[in-house]
């Protein structure tokens, strides 16, 4: 293209890389915009249910989205809150995305997240309150990630040895791990002499993550933002990442090329579980501080949306994690000011996922392009295997 002789290295340099990312995420952007339109129609249609609004108030969607926006990024508190909400979404999103890249559909994020929580809590419970935070916290995070990793390791081993499909085993394991969590807080992790099954508050044991931003911006935000380049580096710059992606794209060819595909399955599931576990551990130490009865999470499933929206690409996952986190952060101010229920955010997330799954943009392009089917199939080979897997 350019007049200068391209060296081998320059062909992978920033502009091309950025253009590639755009190509990758264009479909996601279209899905988001369409979801906003559909959500807007929904808000307008039901505006009559709110006090002081006409039955079809066209201004209301604008006001709601405006409040959502300013709630998410309009103030330091808003930005902090966005980052805090985004942290587990990005970490678990990276876990699910890593699985997608390796050809695995990890639905076990919920259980892995809870194991991360239990792991971190165990460290805080066992360690005395005299131990300083710089020992307790790293140890709690490591054990949380390890326990989350173990929750991924099990379906990994099951798949590698018997071929049991990870979708089935991770869903089943979710139930087991939810109840394992309940057992843990009513048994070994229960606060002594408490009337109900509840754990100790980590703030009383030097276990709370340090606040680095605003009122509640804990340091876990940095871990999430740091994990993005690390996972990217692993996937695209290391031989292990190449093996994972190869096994994910075509496991037969990977086996023929001498890669140990069974080990790769176990490793990918373990890493995915560890990232989801870390999401659980940072949420415990940075936000909730205590496991109360009925503690559960939707992060495992939200992370699937995040990974799909970000096309399994670490940078894309960071962007989509920030988007969904921002929506959560802005939901409260939207509910307060124009009075649109915060649940709208759940609806938007679901609509985004639906538009992603029907591939609006690709269909539209395929219809417009001459000989549509041919160009569409060429497109579909370069996008994340995640979509193919969902389609299967």
């Amino acid at each position: 293209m350019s007049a200068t002789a391209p060296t081998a290295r320059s062909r992978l340099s920033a502009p091309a890389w950025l253009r590639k990312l755009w190509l990758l995420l264009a479909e996601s952007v279209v899905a988001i915009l369409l979801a906003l339109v559909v959500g807007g129609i929904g808000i307008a249609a039901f505006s009559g249910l709110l006090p002081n609004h006409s039955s079809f108030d066209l201004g209301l969607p604008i006001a709601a989205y405006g409040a959502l926006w300013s709630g998410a990024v309009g103030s330091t508190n808003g930005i902090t809150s966005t980052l805090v909400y985004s942290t587990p979404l990005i970490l678990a999103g990276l876990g699910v995305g890593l699985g997608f890249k390796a050809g695995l559909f990890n639905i076990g994020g919920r259980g892995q997240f809870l194991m991360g929580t239990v792991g971190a809590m165990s460290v805080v419970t066992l360690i005395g309150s005299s131990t300083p935070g710089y020992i307790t916290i790293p140890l709690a995070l490591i054990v949380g990630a390890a326990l989350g990793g173990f929750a991924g390791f099990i379906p990994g081993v099951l798949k590698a040895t018997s071929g049991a499909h990870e979708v089935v085993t991770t869903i089943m394991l979710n139930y087991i791990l939810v109840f394992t969590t309940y057992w843990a807080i009513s048994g070994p992790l229960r606060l002594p002499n408490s009337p109900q099954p509840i754990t100790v508050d980590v703030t009383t044991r030097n276990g709370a993550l340090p606040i680095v931003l605003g009122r509640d911006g804990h340091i876990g935000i940095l871990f999430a933002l740091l994990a993005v380049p690390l996972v990217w580096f692993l996937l695209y710059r290391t031989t292990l990442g190449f093996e994972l992606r190869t096994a994910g794209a075509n496991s037969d060819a990977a086996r023929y090329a001498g890669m140990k595909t069974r080990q790769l399955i176990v490793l990918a599931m373990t890493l995915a579980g560890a990232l989801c576990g870390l999401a659980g551990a940072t949420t415990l130490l940075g936000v909730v501080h205590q496991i109360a009865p009925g503690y559960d999470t939707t992060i495992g499933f939200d992370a699937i949306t995040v990974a799909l929206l970000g096309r399994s690409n670490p940078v894309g996952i960071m962007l989509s994690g920030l988007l969904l986190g921002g929506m959560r952060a802005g939901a409260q101010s939207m509910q307060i000011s124009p009075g649109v229920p915060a649940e709208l955010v759940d609806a938007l997330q679901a609509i985004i996922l639906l538009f992603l799954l029907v591939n609006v943009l690709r269909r539209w392009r395929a219809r417009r392009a001459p000989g549509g089917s041919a160009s569409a199939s060429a497109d579909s080979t370069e996008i994340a295997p995640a979509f193919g897997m969902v389609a299967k």
Partner: protein
Amino acid sequence: MPGEAAATSVPALEMRGITKRYPGVVANDHINLDVRRGEIHALLGENGAGKTTLMNVLYGLARPNEGQILLDGKPVTIAGPSDAIDRGISMVHQHFMLVPVLSVAENVVLGSETMANRLFLDRGEANKRIAALAKRFGFALDPEMKVGSLSVGQQQRVEILKALYRDAQILVLDEPTAVLTPQETDEIFALLRKLAADGRSIVFISHKLYEVLAVADRITVIRRGRVIGERKPSETTEAELAELMVGREVELTVDRGVSHAGAPMLQVEGLHVADDRRQEVVPGATLQIRAGEILGIAGVAGNGQDELVEALIGLRRPSAGKVTLDGREVTGFSPRAMNEAGVGYVPGDRQRFGLILAFPLYDNLVLTSYYRPPFAHGFLREDAAVLESADEQVERFDIRVPSSTVATATLSGGNQQKVVVAREFDRPLKLLVLDQPTRGLDVGSIEFIHRQIIAKRDAGTAVLLVSAELDEVMEISDRIAVMFRGRIVAELDGRTADKSQVGLLMATGGDKATAEEATA
């Protein structure tokens, strides 16, 4: 019908100045084609020449940028496949469009069902029509059979029956013989002649020279989207057609030269290999290949060749026996250990086993060496070295791509196979295992790959060639081993072996197998 009176002078189908552009390529450049009633018209061209695009235009799957289609002299616009079918055009695709769990009759009527009433199919009527058609054209098909239980050749006949049921006057067959055995090919040719004699027009797409010469009434050669010439089989030769098709003189049979075989390189002794169902499909194979020698394995598919190959490249652990490579025992080595011991491998199904289609070209070129210097240091990949080596291989192996960063899926079959060949051949090898290395390729690519194989042999590599195409085995092997029920039943000299003799050995196993069975 009004068209019938004019049938003798007006072509049944005429395509005038068809131009079809895709971003960056002109797939069809003002193509003219006319097909007469009762004619078998072959469309000959290399992969990617534009044959399939032209037929997609005819079938309404692609809209041309320019040009006109005339049926019986009348211009028509074909908006889609259903439109094409209504006008009597049917297409038999390379990959069949059949529902395996449905019966032959159900597949045939699918999409044009005769209804007894609003709710139920009129099966009786449909079966009657199918039986009549089958009788008229000599199909040996049971309408009640499930399509999934039929052989590939029979499935193809179901596709043709489907077209006839819709009363197709113009029948397009896209590479119909690619999946057939030689005998099935003869059968389909006989059927096509019957259909032509019945007054139907047949467009036969192929890149196999001897086939178009055998079956066509007229041959139109397409190259790079243009019509290069039109010939009658009686007035042309394979060599001329090949030259038209490729654009230069082509050696249809690469001169294999003389083998200067050296010391034994690969020795396989009493190898027992079981398949996935734990059936012992290789019950003790013994063979030897010397350095600088090509051993071709001839055998009907499913006689243990796949398992033998998998055992030799480390994918399948033999249950007994010994494999020695250059004096070193390598029995039971992993694929990577075999690769490092100097074994190269070209799989039969390149898209499934040899390539990651979603990956760029340069990643596929290092699929087996990505972890070694210079492509990696420790766990870090060295993109610069990978790209540099890729550019060099693209050049040297004549892989036709704009850049080594394109996705491998966008390459033609021939170029994809060149990627595999570049990866596997481009290092010193002791043993090269080839499983149908030219399957589905055009003559230009076949010539190129055969040359590379012979060059590798002349460099002192032992080559094991397994192919279901007996012609290929006969053409380049120095020695031919016939495999029957997992055993090597005969060994012949590659230059003097007789095709019919080898064919007989493949089918029966020869005296040795018969004798063994008698004693067993």
